[in-house]
């Protein structure tokens, strides 16, 4: 995918500025409808989810006290994984978005909530709510696109180091909570700019380290020690590591599905100068993808399976997205836009496909088949080991081949 402004046929070419503003007005009306509707049943919903999550966590932790017995280990680990996923997705993510601030309950409020995750809530709110949700899918502004470590767009020049990006992406998925913490700190860029001695950065970093220390002490010291009397120290430790990894893999997958599948649009930095509310809405509509599935999937994904609705109305309560979706879908149809939705396996595959495709030079995957594979691999080897000149020449050849292939098709 290339930024929407450079595409041969823009998916929004058929919309006049008036259309886009009218679309904004209609979306505002949907927002208002649900603002007016939200009430006691919504409040009861989030309290119920929090109550269930806490009971699952208490139960799982209790079962894991005897985790040396395999059935206890399995039940406890599954329970703890579910509890951590609920805490991060349907509860933490959405409370920190301010979706429940309207209840005026100081215990369920974006300004007071803290979650079971390496990154402190305050820092995540800045990088996620403020940067990602405002600059969604704008190359160079929205670091959620590839987290600054991946090639996410054809326009980014290919470099041999990108060959390893599927591996990085997998490692990042396993340790996702730490990846997010580093990313919220803007660690990579700070190191690159040699600003790690900056006092403000230091202060932030020490907050992250304190949070990580607390989380690790709980999962890897205190609970294993509490299990010691049954001889379950190591099995509880293993259970907690497993639950954290499961949570990391799950949340990474869900989040990849939100903006990464093939067909989701990206935008140029220039394009958001003086952006109107209608244009902002359109960018959210085209820059997000949904996951279709059961109610359980929606809850476990924190309703990020309704990523499009979430990006349009990030502060409406998550339990309402399922009701908002048909109305939003109607608007997509009315304005001739592509409502991007597919089941989880399909979206995960699509997102990973993009990671692989962009780890290779533009056009390489498309022009390679079983017959020319040896030749193509040789070319890739040359591109990976040669200098910029070799790369440019080979890329030109690839572009030509790809164009020819398209013309035939």
């Amino acid at each position, binding site marked *: 995918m290339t930024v929407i402004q450079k595409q041969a046929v823009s998916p929004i070419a058929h919309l006049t500025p008036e259309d886009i503003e009218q679309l904004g007005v209609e979306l*505002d009306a949907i927002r*208002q409808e649900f*603002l007016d509707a*939200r*009430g*006691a*049943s*919504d*409040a*009861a919903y989030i309290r119920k989810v929090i*109550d269930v999550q*806490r*009971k699952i966590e*208490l139960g799982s*932790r209790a079962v894991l006290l005897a985790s040396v017995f395999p059935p206890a280990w399995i039940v406890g680990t599954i329970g703890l994984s579910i509890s951590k996923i609920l805490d991060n997705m349907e509860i933490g993510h959405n409370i920190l*978005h*301010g979706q429940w*601030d*309207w*209840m*005026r*309950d100081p*215990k369920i*409020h*974006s*300004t007071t909530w*803290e*979650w*079971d995750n390496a990154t402190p809530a305050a820092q995540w*709110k*800045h990088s996620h*709510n*403020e940067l990602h*949700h*405002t600059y969604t899918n704008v190359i160079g502004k929205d670091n959620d696109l590839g987290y600054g470590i991946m090639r996410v767009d054809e326009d980014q020049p290919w470099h041999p180091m990108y060959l390893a990006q599927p591996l990085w992406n997998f490692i990042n998925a396993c340790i996702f909570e730490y990846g997010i913490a580093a990313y919220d700190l803007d660690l990579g860029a700070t190191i690159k700019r040699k600003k790690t001695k900056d006092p403000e950065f230091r202060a932030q970093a020490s907050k992250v380290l304190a*949070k990580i220390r*607390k*989380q690790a*002490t*709980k999962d890897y010291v*205190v*609970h294993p020690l*509490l299990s010691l009397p049954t001889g379950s120290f190591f099995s509880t430790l293993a259970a907690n590591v497993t639950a954290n990894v499961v949570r990391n893999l799950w949340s990474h997958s869900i989040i990849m599905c939100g903006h990464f599948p093939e067909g989701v649009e990206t935008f140029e930095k220039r394009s958001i100068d003086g952006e109107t*509310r209608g244009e*902002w809405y359109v960018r959210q509509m085209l820059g997000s993808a949904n996951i279709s599935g059961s109610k359980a999937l929606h809850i476990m994904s924190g309703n990020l399976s309704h990523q499009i609705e979430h990006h349009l109305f*990030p*502060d409406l309560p998550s339990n309402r997205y399922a009701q908002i979706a048909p109305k939003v879908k109607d608007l997509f149809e009315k304005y001739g836009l592509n409502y991007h939705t597919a089941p989880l396996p399909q979206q995960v595959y699509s997102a990973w496909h993009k990671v692989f495709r962009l780890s290779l030079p533009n056009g390489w995957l498309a022009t390679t088949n079983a017959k020319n594979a040896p030749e193509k691999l040789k070319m890739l080897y040359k591109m990976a080991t040669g200098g910029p000149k070799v790369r440019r020449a080979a890329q030109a050849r690839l572009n030509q081949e790809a164009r020819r292939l398209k013309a035939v098709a």
Partner: protein
Amino acid sequence: MSIALNAGGPAGPQGQTLRQLRDGVRRLTELAVTPLVPADYLDMFNPLRAGADLRGRIVDVHPETRDAATLLIKPGADWAGHVPGQYVRIGIDVDGVRQWRAYSLTHGPRRDGYISITVKAVPDGKVSNHLVHHTRPGTLVHLEQATGDFVLPEMPGKLLFVTAGSGVTPVVGMLRNLFPVADSGVVHLRRSEDLDITVVHVAPSEPDSIFIDNLRELHASRAINLIPRYDDVHGLLDVNRLDELVPDLAERATYACGPAGLLDALEAHHTERGMELFVEQFRTTFVEPGEGDQIYGVSFNDGTAVEADGATPILDAAESAGVLMPSGCRMGVCYGCVLPLREGIVRDLRNGEITKAAPGDGVKVQTCINAAAGPCEFDH
């Protein structure tokens, strides 16, 4: 030489070990439940326990008139008690939104430790209507400790109570304490023997009178001298002719609770004659939202005050006046600019929605999309 002081708890080395053990367990529990706190889990099972945020459970809702009800509440273990005449601030979720209001305590202190408030549903009153008509026993409410100076002195002597409408509630709290009612009727306590109490009770009509039966019972047993005044029978009460109803008015200390108009008139009347008056008023008179083209004062608790017009976000107005404000996306999405509104009224510039805050509410509002619709005070 040093002297070890034990502040509370068992003394001696044994006590110290115990304390250390307790602190150790507490610390371990905190480490085990982070990022939550142990209280988050304890609240799930016992929200009224000692050490919890102060809450109460509604035990009974008893209708008093067609639009008033008494709510009997079991307060949390940390309830510190009250003096009759005091009020309590109570927080209840109405349509999912936590709302705080103050109500006089109309009963107790009681032996079972319960407290009660009596609420009159006022027209368009979101909270009062909810409490009177839609609250069920078992509901959890949030409380603050009882407070208020509208209480009787140690040696009361000759008193006059002037009550209007639901202003009768703190007075009933006092009277019930002075003259408990048993199955056999009003109990005359020794401590209440020397009292000489007149109650002028004003109400729109007789059926609208909360607690009129209780007042009549006290009157019948000669505990008080009740002078009921119904607007539909007697016409509106003229404060300047109060001495016609109460000839020994000048000898009495007056305790009044009711709407602002009545209290203002009483205050003028009593000040002029140099008589003693104690008043209590609850109904918060909210400023109605003003228009967008007006200028309002917005102040912060460090003393800075800025002028903001009703069409400019508070964030922008404060920043252009040099106030360092938390901010984020500036479009109402990220909640990075949220500040507690201590008192005042704001308007959401996107859809015109009005948010009001009374003292003590501390409603958190997004400053980037809200403009002042009246004078505002922020905690910042």
